[in-house]
């Protein structure tokens, strides 16, 4: 075991500090940061984030309360859940109707019912999503890295031909696209750790194979041509420089990736039909399938999203009940299958799967009960139409999450929300910095990991104060 305080490491880092103190904007690993590396025994190699973009109501999904069926003239304030409760694999633990498949595998993971989202005033989804994914509230004076980029920068790829941070399912041409781009970035860590973006999983293969219309033998010949011309270029005589070296190295990496047999992991058509059909509930389901295939070939961080588009998918400003029934159809079978498949192939033990959303929803409360924010949804007190029946306001004080695999307790319920409105967290509140540190802990990344950016320390969680929730681990 290394002693974490050896003098050489100190001198090395501090002389690097002297150098980087001059380097233009280049981040450097923090002073003595990483001395703790290897100290934490990792319980996961891979992370899959299943992102329920747009605000998933906890009382209509993984934390159901008393069900009140729709009837004309009903009082809005009486409605806590718009679906029936159904049993799960755990005694006395219920999910909302439509999530039976996930409920049946709950014995393999933990449901967290006490996530408390950040307070950022007047709600903007992308701003809360930024906070969830980077642990920092925008704007920031330096570009905050996505959690996937932090992980990629600290651990690198599992399989070197599979990019270490893959983002599946989000297009950036939609509303709030610019805000989404602001956190789908490696920030100051540098483009190298940025997301490899696959907006549409069914076209995922195109990202990792030779350009359209080019067969493999031509692709190889083209690469050979490049190498030969490079070696004959008279500029070779001018000696090597770091730019040229990095170009040569990255071109080689790209070539290796595009011609590697592992690229088949991106090819969903290679999946047996029976399995494909279970996953094929739409773009999200196929994203789960790709996540499974990539995990089995060695991926580091994969995010699969239901896709954020203002007022679409989980962003239910109206028709909450009918639209959630549809959302559940999209996610239930593929997520359960993903867990079962990874369990069966033996990967679940070392793969941490997290399902989360930026915040929850409630029919009445906007923001937090004790810190209400500007209302953005018109909710009549007496419901006459089905379109007003659902959780339409943005609720930050009690949200549900799921965690499976990667050392997380099996068959566990963490935290609790009140059974009466406001259905807010009443036991074991857990916040984003704890969630991030829990993920880092599972991966063996020390909690004080940081870089000096413009001489200021920038930690994985603000000021390095976040701590892992150790009681989530088995």
């Amino acid at each position, binding site marked *: 075991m*290394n002693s974490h305080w050896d003098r050489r490491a100190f001198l090395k880092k501090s*002389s690097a500090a002297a150098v980087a103190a*001059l380097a233009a*904007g280049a981040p450097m690993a923090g002073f003595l940061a990483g001395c703790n590396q290897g100290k934490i025994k990792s319980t996961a190699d891979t992370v899959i984030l299943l992102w329920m973009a747009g605000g998933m109501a906890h009382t209509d999904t993984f934390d159901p309360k008393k069900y009140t069926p729709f009837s004309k003239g009903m009082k809005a304030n009486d409605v806590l859940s718009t679906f029936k409760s159904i049993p799960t694999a755990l005694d006395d633990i219920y999910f909302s109707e439509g999530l039976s498949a996930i409920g049946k595998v709950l014995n393999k993971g933990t449901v967290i019912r006490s996530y408390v989202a950040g307070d950022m005033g007047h709600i903007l989804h992308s701003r809360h999503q930024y906070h969830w994914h980077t642990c920092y509230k925008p704007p920031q004076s330096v570009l905050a890295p996505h959690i996937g980029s932090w992980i990629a920068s600290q651990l690198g790829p599992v399989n070197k031909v599979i990019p270490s941070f893959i983002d599946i399912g989000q297009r950036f041409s939609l509303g709030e696209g610019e805000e989404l781009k602001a956190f789908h970035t490696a920030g100051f860590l540098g483009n190298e750790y940025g997301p490899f973006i696959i907006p549409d999983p069914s076209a995922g293969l195109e990202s990792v194979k030779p350009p359209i219309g080019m067969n493999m033998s031509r692709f190889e010949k083209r690469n050979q041509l490049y190498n030969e011309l490079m070696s004959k270029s008279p500029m070779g005589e001018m000696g090597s420089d*770091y*730019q040229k070296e990095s170009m040569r190295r990255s071109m080689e990496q*790209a070539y290796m990736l595009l011609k590697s047999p592992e690229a088949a992991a991106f090819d969903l058509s290679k999946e047996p039909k029976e399995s494909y059909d279970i996953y094929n509930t739409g773009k999200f389901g196929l994203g789960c399938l790709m996540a499974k295939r990539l995990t089995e070939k060695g991926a580091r961080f994969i995010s699969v999203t239901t896709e954020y588009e203002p007022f679409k998918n989980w962003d239910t400003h109206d028709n909450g009940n009918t639209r959630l029934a549809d959302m559940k159809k999209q996610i239930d079978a593929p997520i359960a299958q993903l867990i079962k498949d990874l369990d069966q192939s033996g990967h679940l033990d070392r793969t941490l799967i997290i399902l989360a959303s930026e915040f929850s929803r409630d029919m009445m409360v906007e923001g937090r009960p004790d810190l209400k924010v500007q209302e953005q949804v018109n909710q009549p007190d007496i419901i006459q139409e089905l379109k007003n029946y659902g959780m339409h306001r943005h609720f930050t004080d009690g949200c549900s999450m799921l965690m499976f695999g990667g050392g997380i307790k099996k068959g566990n319920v963490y935290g609790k929300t009140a059974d009466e409105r406001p259905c807010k967290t009443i036991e074991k509140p857990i916040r984003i910095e704890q969630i991030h540190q829990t993920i880092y802990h599972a991966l063996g990344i020390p909690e004080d990991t940081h870089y000096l950016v413009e001489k200021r320390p920038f930690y994985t969680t603000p000021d390095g104060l976040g701590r892992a929730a150790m*009681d989530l681990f088995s």
Partner: protein
Amino acid sequence: MKEAKTTSKPGKKLVIVIGSMVLFCVLQISFNALAQSTAPSSNSNAFWVWRWMGRWHPMVIHFPVALILLATLLEFFTLKKFTSPLRPAIKLLLTIGTITAFVSALLGWILSKEGGYEKEVVSIHQWVGIATACLAGMTWMLLNSILKKNQTQFMIAYRFLLLLSGLGILVAGHYGASISHGKDYFSSTLPWSKDYDASTKGNFDVTAFKNDTAKLTKQQAIELNIQVRSILAHNCYKCHGPEKIKGDLRLDRRDMIFKGGEDGPVIVPGDPIASDLFRRISLPSSDKDAMPSKGKKLSEAAIAIIKFWIQKGAPWPDSSEKSIFRIAALAPRNPVLPPVTNELSNPIDRWVNQYFLKNKIVWPKVVEDKTFFKRVSLDIVGLLPSPEELEKFIKDTRPNKRALWIRKLLDQQDDYATHWLSFWNDALRNDYTGTGYITGGRHNITDWLYTSLKSNKPYDRFAKELLSPNDSSKGFIEGIKWRGVVNASQRTEMQAAQNVSQIFLGLNLKCTSCHNSFISDWKLTDAYAFANIFADSSLEINRCDKPTGKYTGTRMLWTTLGTIDSSATRAVKQSQLATLMVQASNGRFYRTIVNRLWAQMMGRGLIEPVDVMDNEPWDQDLLDWMAFQFQQNKSDMKELLYLITTSATYQLPSVGYKDASKIFAQQYQFTGMLRKRMTAEQFADAAATIIGPLFSDSMLMYHPAPSQILNKPNFARAALVSNNPFLIALGRPTRETVTTSRESQSNLLQALELTNGERFNSMIKKGAQTWKLKYVNSDRIIKEIYVRALGREAQLAEYQIAKKILGEQPSPSSIEDLFWAILLLPEFQIIY
């Protein structure tokens, strides 16, 4: 085990056990010494048998613990009658207990060599353990004497030693448990303990430094001190800082921290254990003495840094009289130009000549026409010269042709403005798309910027219009406002203070927006006083996002530059700032822009990073002289570029570095322009010049007013389209924050974008079809692509390789592949 069989001759056995222990000690010590001489920190490569044996210690240890304690207990029942029926049992317990105690001690010794434990505790545990084994041995010998030789006079001594052995077992056991379960194993389960995170207990090897006499260098001491102050600021200043002084203790100043608090000094330099500060931050948070008393326990690394700092004598460079930080002079300076020598008449060359003489550097020959023309064209207008222009330039025989062509490039107003738009967009974080626009929280200044660059607006006026803006230029200081509540240090007034000081003064106020800086002498109040200029009314000072209830006036960062009327309206304050900022006596303002433009042209500033103008330039005279002349010469940016590009200094062969960190090292020496990689925009525009447009006209986000200038590129230039995955991959920043340097290294995502990205590949595919029709045969195509892309003809070897791919009748796909290979060559992408 062999020893176990020899119990019939206990005397001999003892000798064997003690003997083998001594042997192991010797072995371990020599092994250790050997290991340390090769790898000071690691013992993990120890022979596996040792490691395997060591792991038995925690199991074997239970024998002596149970047996000796039981023997001690039973002894109490024999107080009345020594020859109690229990005696044989006690003897047996003591015998086996003693043997296993020695075995355990031995195994423990081996285990401790494996490392990974807190050495101080291990050391106590180890010596108490060994002493206990010895005590037990002596007790056993006494008992034997009493029983065999009836030497009853030893009875009291025997019982005393037995009791002592029992106590020894307890003490050793306690420390042993602390090692394996942590000191807070019990206390952390208590309901009032907040220390739920028991898994990350401390076990770093602090004793590694005990005999380490190596002194920290001055630089290391400063870095270490900054780290310590950063930790103290974020965790302790709240109660022990300028706002609150609990327990009479302030930790934010050198004199105060060493003076200590109401209970005396808190730091004993060189002795962390005796330092109350270290003791209290190390306590579990359940302890009433633990610090911070409110808030979370410090991270282990933070505690370790503080411990190390105290061990090293708690260095805190004296800043009360003289700053520990380098502070650059504010005033302008006009050093006397060195005389003309070696036919070098350009003033820059005269300074550099002096620098070269001093550093014993011989002037290399300036680069030949082709390299020069590609370089200067890309640097001034961002475009690759056409083969026709290049030929005209080469054939030009006028002796001052380089200066004449430079002038011509500078006069290409639209090309110049389009190229420099990217640099200023980065710096002023201006973009067509981005966060903030969605809720009206951001304003675009492209039209103002483009027309300012096109008309070569003097830099002082340029800055004034940004600082005291009208509607078309207000975007820079208005900043980016997201919907909702933001951190106090990121409110738009504070963004303005940070960005204005960074861009115009090369000063970083980001730390100082939250708390007093520990990387400079700037204080929180300075940042707020400066931010108040951009506020309608004075801002309440927030320390680390917590309101303090305090306010400060409105001030320029350097009061020597003049005053600002605190009670004036925002517009008046900004206009006062604009005037103070650009006055001639603000030398820093002019040095900052001169250094930035120099860095753009030469690949590295005279000062690096370009945003830290307090750092030392590699030639102070050159920087001061240029800044002074620039200000005197109507702050004319084009004239400065003319001066730089017409110098022999600019025209020296480019310098490549294998190790990028050397470029920014303190001992950097200037020997010529650094090799630069084309920016995303330069690359896209160059590819478009040679083959065809990457962006359709419909992607244009800004349409400059029609111009009289001829030779206007017939494609949408990359600077004028909105950011997209292609440009992002090649390094165009998102402009969410101010950016003053671009990534110069390539990466996988970029290579993938170029290798199979649709935009680039469909562009060359289209181009190949056009070329096939236009140039028809292979030889012509090879000639054209080499001349257009690389400014030269293919050499024979290159020709043969290319010909092999194209054949006699080239197919569009083979032309496409040749395009791809040429455009990706470092020779094409690097500006030599």
